[in-house]
């Protein structure tokens, strides 16, 4: 296997260029198990077969396609059969609808048959034939391969509603074996509801035995086994296995694990404890069921139970599907958090996502008094592990010895009644302690018999000159530089016997030295060549330390800074240069700015500088080892890590998900490795878990699928309205259970059996057409839990919510919730609809129903507007005030938008109304006339199926649509002005409507295809002191930012880079699609640069980068481009 862990394209065959369409093959792909042919099918008509031929080990070539088209035929599923080494055979579930096209009576639709069709690829003749077909159950939806070859049955398992049937080519009806899918037993279960199979897998054991794990739409997994005799199937058997979340795909690994690719929420890896043979669940076999599913039979039942055969071992976090999102700083941290509600059904969660690195807390222990700094050191240069921890207290120094446990050490030779500036293992067997009055040199510190008391061979002191103190130092194993309060720097090197030898020359700067840095001695060298010095005149000076050079201890380069440097460090870090690593100088400023520059090995020049503001406090550094690579912990108001990304080697700075600390040092112990740090009077050790992901999320479980998220910033709580279709609500479940319990009690005179099925694993009880819904209050900051749940009545669904301070009620807060009764989508129907008003308690943690107002359509959008409630009711826009017993309508615009209002946003008197299928409409509110007027004055030319919208400024709106586009539209300035002119809006009412819409049209500013449905969008800043970006969340879990360009020059640069990357031959998308065509999937991409494409530049090897730079029209350097890309992210996002 190559080291790269990258997919490599072997062969690309183009067969359709017009996107994902009805007749472009690719919806289904089936492969012959022996790898000889591939069949691709579209939903309708087209099927292509490619023959794969192998030359040698890795070379695969694809033939030109063979066609097996059949017009007016729908394909439901496609499978490659296991036929051993006979001609490849494919099975498809097909339905020919041609008879329905010409039958006006509509009976043909009822009578059309679904067929299982076998296609044989004749390898000898290079020809595909439709070999055989048989009608199958009309509800059949899935096929599974049955192992073939000698002594194996071959054929398919054909699954449909309430059916799992074994079929094979050329069989007759008597040879078909059918199983019904077992149904759940339980008081809240409808015994007549039929299940279907939604996912599954075949697993072949050694020796030809095999079984299937098939999952029903409830999530129950069944084990299906075969009784065979020499290739003949006697019967098939089914047994309940376990219940997993509904999956897209289930995969059994050879090592005994089951991976469940859940449709929503976190993906789970289970360990196979047993194969389900021991459990006492009922087993059903095919002799119990008739082949024809329409004939009557007694339905099989089972009792769901907690996991018995599988044990969850690992969870892969996934936010898919995100339903709503808000960025805000409830936790009052440096940077805001991202709050999302995601998931569907009982696995829904409320998540708090932060930009941070996950760390593992290893040790946490109290200290006798407050510590200021911490160091660890080895005792001998050859030691593998750190032996001493040195803690600098306020006026003393504490030495701890690391053994089996950590104890205080005595007689170590260290000066203990002074503060310490630094500790360094020096030469072979010496340790030096740098303190304000000088240097203590300790030779051969040992702890005989692992005692707490140590012995030393020799102690030497070097005293600082009179009236001067040591203010700063830099050291490595062979070199030491100290800065005195007078602004002089003294340089020492390691003698042959390990003692300090002072250089005759000294450096005199005449400025206060704030920090010095010397890199570690490179392997094979006697010294490190460069010393960096930061001084109070806001400069960094670089000195040459090589005595052979004629510039010995002379300044070779300087760099001016914007503030006084507070810390420096030099280290070798991994990057994507040809050498694989470079020497970097890290500079921390008192203003909280962190700078990283490349320090040229030979000239001492600084290049490729990156700056970033990390927090409002002076920066300190600690060189550490994170996941095997050198990294730098940067301490300011909170800790950060500066590191190379493990996969791309690009430079990253990410905050740690940890408390702030004062000082840190690398710690390599025998048992634990990590970073040691002190905060107040606590000593902690932590390590890094994973450097690949730069976000951390915490989740709180919710009851149903969340629909809307409403924040209450003052009280730091969120209100989530949730609803689930095809689900029985909690109240009904309760009463069903009670009734069942009474029945059972009557029969057996025993108490009802308490069944403890957690909805999280088993889902809520389901029933077609019903709704279950609730409102939950979530506290993500202090309690990390749901604090109140209000369950709505049977068959009601909450569809919208808004927090409204009613002016007429003294600005008291009310939560308005739009509720629909008996809602169904196809066709769109509901029985009644209302707006419920809940009174919010003063602390925001309790809701109480105030009153309920019936509306004549479903209120899908609610908004607090000028102390009143603005509601989109169907396609009407109404303004309500709070009355005593109901809401009072103050203004009303009928038919404000063409379809249905699904979203409202406002600034000032302007309201942006999003329509379900007709983009957005600008509406102005005129409050000085009676009754108030809400006048639509501008709308869009394109029917965008809006999902979310956000006002970028007063005239500009950004939004997303159901097809996965992001767009920005802008109202023309004149129209915008005209809408504000009069106080009564009389002239707006007089304007003639244009082409059945509003009188004016908005202009398109930006358009971009994201391949994920944006569900929420917010203009916000993501960083402390950062500029605002448009942050959006996509249904499938994407979080994205649209960043504004502030200079034309930058824009040009990115545009050229995008163009170069787009046209680069080597640099193609893994899907093989053309980038421009992809981003312009529905509408040509406009006014936006694809940041995802741009950032792939950072991951390329250096020579490819240079190739791309060379192909650009203007001359840029790779460093310059990398710097720009990095800045774009660092200044706006993370």
């Amino acid at each position, binding site marked *: 296997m190559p080291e790269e862990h990258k997919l490599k394209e072997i062969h690309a065959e183009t067969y359709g260029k017009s996107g994902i369409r009805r007749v472009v093959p690719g919806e289904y792909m089936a492969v012959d198990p022996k790898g000889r042919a591939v069949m691709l099918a579209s939903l309708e008509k087209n099927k292509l077969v490619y023959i794969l031929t192998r030359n040698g080990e890795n070379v695969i070539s694809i033939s030109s396609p063979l066609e097996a088209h059949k017009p007016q035929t729908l394909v439901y599923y496609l499978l490659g059969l296991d036929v051993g080494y006979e001609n490849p055979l494919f099975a498809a579930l097909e*339905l020919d609808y041609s008879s329905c096209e010409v039958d006006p009576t509509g009976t043909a639709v009822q009578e059309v048959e679904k067929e299982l069709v076998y296609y044989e690829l004749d390898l000898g003749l290079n020809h595909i034939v439709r070999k055989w077909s048989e009608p199958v159950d009309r509800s059949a939806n899935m096929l599974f391969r049955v192992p073939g070859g000698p002594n194996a049955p071959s054929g398919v398992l054909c699954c449909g509603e309430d059916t799992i049937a074994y079929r094979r080519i050329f069989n007759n009806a008597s040879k078909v074996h059918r199983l019904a899918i077992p149904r759940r037993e339980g008081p809240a279960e409808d015994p007549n509801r039929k299940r*279907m199979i939604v996912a599954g897998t075949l697993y072949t054991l050694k020796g030809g035995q095999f079984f299937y794990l098939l999952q029903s739409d409830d999530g129950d997994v069944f084990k299906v086994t075969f009784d065979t005799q020499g290739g003949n199937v006697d019967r098939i058997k089914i047994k309940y296995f376990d219940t997993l979340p509904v999956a897209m795909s289930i995969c059994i690994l050879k090592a005994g694990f089951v991976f469940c690719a859940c449709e929503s929420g976190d993906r789970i890896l289970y360990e196979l404890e047993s194969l389900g043979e021991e459990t006492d669940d009922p087993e059903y076999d095919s002799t119990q069921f008739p082949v024809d599913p329409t004939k009557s039979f007694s339905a099989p039942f089972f009792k769901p139970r907690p996991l018995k055969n599988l044990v969850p071992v690992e969870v892969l976090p996934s936010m898919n599907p995100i339903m709503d999102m808000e960025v805000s700083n409830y936790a009052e941290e440096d940077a805001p958090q991202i709050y999302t509600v995601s998931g569907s059904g009982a696995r829904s969660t409320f998540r708090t996502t932060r930009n941070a690195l996950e760390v593992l807390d290893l040790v946490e222990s109290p200290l006798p008094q407050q510590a200021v700094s911490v160091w660890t050191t080895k005792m001998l240069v050859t030691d593998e592990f750190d032996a001493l921890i040195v803690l600098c207290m306020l006026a003393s120094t504490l030495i701890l010895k690391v053994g089996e446990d950590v104890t205080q050490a005595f007689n170590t030779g260290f000066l203990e009644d002074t503060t310490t500036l630094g500790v360094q293992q020096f030469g072979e067997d010496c340790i030096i302690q740098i303190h304000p009055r000088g240097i203590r040199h300790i030779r051969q510190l040992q702890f005989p018999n692992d005692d707490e008391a140590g012995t030393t061979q020799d102690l030497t002191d070097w005293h600082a000159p009179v009236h001067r103190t040591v203010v700063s130092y830099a050291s490595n194993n062979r070199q030491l530089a100290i800065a005195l309060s007078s602004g002089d720097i003294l340089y020492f090197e390691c003698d042959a016997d390990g003692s300090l030898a002072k250089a005759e020359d000294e450096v005199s700067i005449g400025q206060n030295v704030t920090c010095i840095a010397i890199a570690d001695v490179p392997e094979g060298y006697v010294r490190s060549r460069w010393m960096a010095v930061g001084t109070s005149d806001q400069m960094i000076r670089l000195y040459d330390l090589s005595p052979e050079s004629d510039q010995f201890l002379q300044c070779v380069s300087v760099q001016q800074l914007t503030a006084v440097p507070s810390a420096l460090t030099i280290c070798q870090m991994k990057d994507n240069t040809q050498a694989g690593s470079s020497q970097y100088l890290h500079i921390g400023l008192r203003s909280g700015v962190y700078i990283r520059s490349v320090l040229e090995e030979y000239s001492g020049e600084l290049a490729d500088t990156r700056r970033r503001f990390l927090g409002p406090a002076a920066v300190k550094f600690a060189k550490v080892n994170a996941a095997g690579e050198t990294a730098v912990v940067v301490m300011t108001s909170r800790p950060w890590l500066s590191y190379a990304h493990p996969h791309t080697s690009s430079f990253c700075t990410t905050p740690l998900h940890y408390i702030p600390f004062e000082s840190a040092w690398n710690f390599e112990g025998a048992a634990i490795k990590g970073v040691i740090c002190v905060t107040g009077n606590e000593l902690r050790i932590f390590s890094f878990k994973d450097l690949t992901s730069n976000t951390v999320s915490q989740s709180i479980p919710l009851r149903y699928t969340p629909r809307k998220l409403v924040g209450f910033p003052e009280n730091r709580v969120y209100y989530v309205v949730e609803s689930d279709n095809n689900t029985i609500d909690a109240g009904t479940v309760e009463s069903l259970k009670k009734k069942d319990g009474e029945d059972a009690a009557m029969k057996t005179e025993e108490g009802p059996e308490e069944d403890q099925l957690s909805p999280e694993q088993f889902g809520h009880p389901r029933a077609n057409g019903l709704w279950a819904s609730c409102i939950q209050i979530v506290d993500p900051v202090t309690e990390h839990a749901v604090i109140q749940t209000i369950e709505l009545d049977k068959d009601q669904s909450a569809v919208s919510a808004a927090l409204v301070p009613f002016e007429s009620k003294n600005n008291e807060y009310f939560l308005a919730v739009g509720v629909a009764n008996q809602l169904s989508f196809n066709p769109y129907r509901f029985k009644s609809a209302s707006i419920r008003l809940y009174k919010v308690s003063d602390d925001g943690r309790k809701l109480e129903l105030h009153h309920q107002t019936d509306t004549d359509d479903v209120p899908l959008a609610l908004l607090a507007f000028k102390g009143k409630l603005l509601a989109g009711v169907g396609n009407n826009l109404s303004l309500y005030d709070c009355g005593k017993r109901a809401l009072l309508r103050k203004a009303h615009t009928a038919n404000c938008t063409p379809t249905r209002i699904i979203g409202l946003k406002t600034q000032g008197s302007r309201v942006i109304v999003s329509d379900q299928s007709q983009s957005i409409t600008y509406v102005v509110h005129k409050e000085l006339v009676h009754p108030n007027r809400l006048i639509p004055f501008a709308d869009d030319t394109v029917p965008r199926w809006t999902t979310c919208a956000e006002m970028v400024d007063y005239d500009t709106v950004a939004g997303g649509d159901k097809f996965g586009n992001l767009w920005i539209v802008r109202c023309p300035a004149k129209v915008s002005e005209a809408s504000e002119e009069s106080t009564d809006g009389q002239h707006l009412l007089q304007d003639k409507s244009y082409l059945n819409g509003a009188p004016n049209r908005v202009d398109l500013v930006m358009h971009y295809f994201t391949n994920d449905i944006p569900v929420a969008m917010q203009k916000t800043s993501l960083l402390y002191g950062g500029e605002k970006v448009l942050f959006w969340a996509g249904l499938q879990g994407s979080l994205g930012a649209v960043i504004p360009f502030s200079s034309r020059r930058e824009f040009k640069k990115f545009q050229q880079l995008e163009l170069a990357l787009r046209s680069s031959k080597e640099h193609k998308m893994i899907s093989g699609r053309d980038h421009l065509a992809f981003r312009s999937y529905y509408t040509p991409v406009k006014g936006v640069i694809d940041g995802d494409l741009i950032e792939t530049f950072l991951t390329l090897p250096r020579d490819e980068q240079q190739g791309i730079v060379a192909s650009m029209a203007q001359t840029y350097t790779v460093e310059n481009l990398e710097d720009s890309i990095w800045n774009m992210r660092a200044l706006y996002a993370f």
Partner: protein
Amino acid sequence: MADKLRAQQQLEALQSRFIGTGNADTTRFEWTSNIARDSIASYIGHPPMLQYMSIGLGQPKEKTRVQLIDRMIQPVGPPPPVCWVR
């Protein structure tokens, strides 16, 4: 005349090859069912869209997928009765 015939043949070939290629005699029923089938195929083919609908319906994606394909059989109702009067 031969040219015209050839053009006619080419058009027919095109129509059989590419579903939905219209002609002067395309009926409202043919046109609308074609569009509806195209739309449904697009809902199924684009995973986010299928997921969006499945979440709204509160059912697994596979179930929505099968329901949508079933709808492709006759998306806009039965065809109008054929009238043979000239």
